[in-house]
């Protein structure tokens, strides 16, 4: 797994590539924590290049949601392949997460 981080205005964009499993999840967790600690309120994870995600990856993402709970922070996912989206759907998590079709949409402000 590879993660690259970019600042986009208010948001931090993390572009994730490769496979997310029990081996790579700790690294993903570290990247997400670092991004949260950088002070950005909005986190966008672009997952176009994620080839595989398992329940360890889902757990890591749920942890972020829980950390953000009660704060103004937001987490958005974008660009999920059908295989990755299927894992969210099978876990009933596709409604819990804010999943957007494109990176651009995920980086956009919501109408206030």
């Amino acid at each position, binding site marked *: 797994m590879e993660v690259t981080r970019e600042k986009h205005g208010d948001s931090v964009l993390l572009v994730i590539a490769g496979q997310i*499993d029990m081996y790579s999840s700790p690294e993903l967790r570290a990247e997400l924590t670092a991004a949260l600690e950088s002070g950005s309120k909005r986190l966008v994870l672009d997952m176009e290049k994620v080839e*595989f995600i398992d*329940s360890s990856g889902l757990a890591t993402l749920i942890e972020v949601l829980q950390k953000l709970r009660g704060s103004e922070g937001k987490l958005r996912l974008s660009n999920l392949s059908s*295989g990755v989206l*299927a894992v969210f759907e099978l*876990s009933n998590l596709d409604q819990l997460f804010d999943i957007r079709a494109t990176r651009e949409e995920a980086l956009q402000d919501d109408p206030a």
Partner: protein
Amino acid sequence: MADEVRGIRVSIPSHPRFLAPVRDLAAWSAEQAGFGCEDTEAITLAVTEGCTNVIRHCYGGKHNERIDVDISFSTRALTIRIDDYGTFVDPASIHSRDLDEVRPGGLGVHLMQQVMDQVRYERNAWGGTSLTLMKHIQGDDHVLRSGELDG
């Protein structure tokens, strides 16, 4: 003997580093067996969840214990058996959390059950747990036909 070698068996240390090559082997096997892309992804997910649970729950995260993954083809199904060398766990104690109660973890068994046709825990010959994951091949467009592997 013929039946015994109608597939691949791989033994790995219980280190998460080895999940990726096992996944690759499972994906290759699924493709050989004639599964499409979606089913192949399902199978790699299930085998990952099964091995992850062995590392986490059976070996308590220890990295140098042994896991055997046995992949066998037939013309109608792909069967993956995951064997550990720990102590046998009552299958009744292995179940997913309630999906509505959102928390990290507790999804592996659920995912395996969703994507496979059979998920079965048994005691193995070494006193540990054997997890059998089976998926039927739909249609008859599969590559490995009866007898094709015979010498």
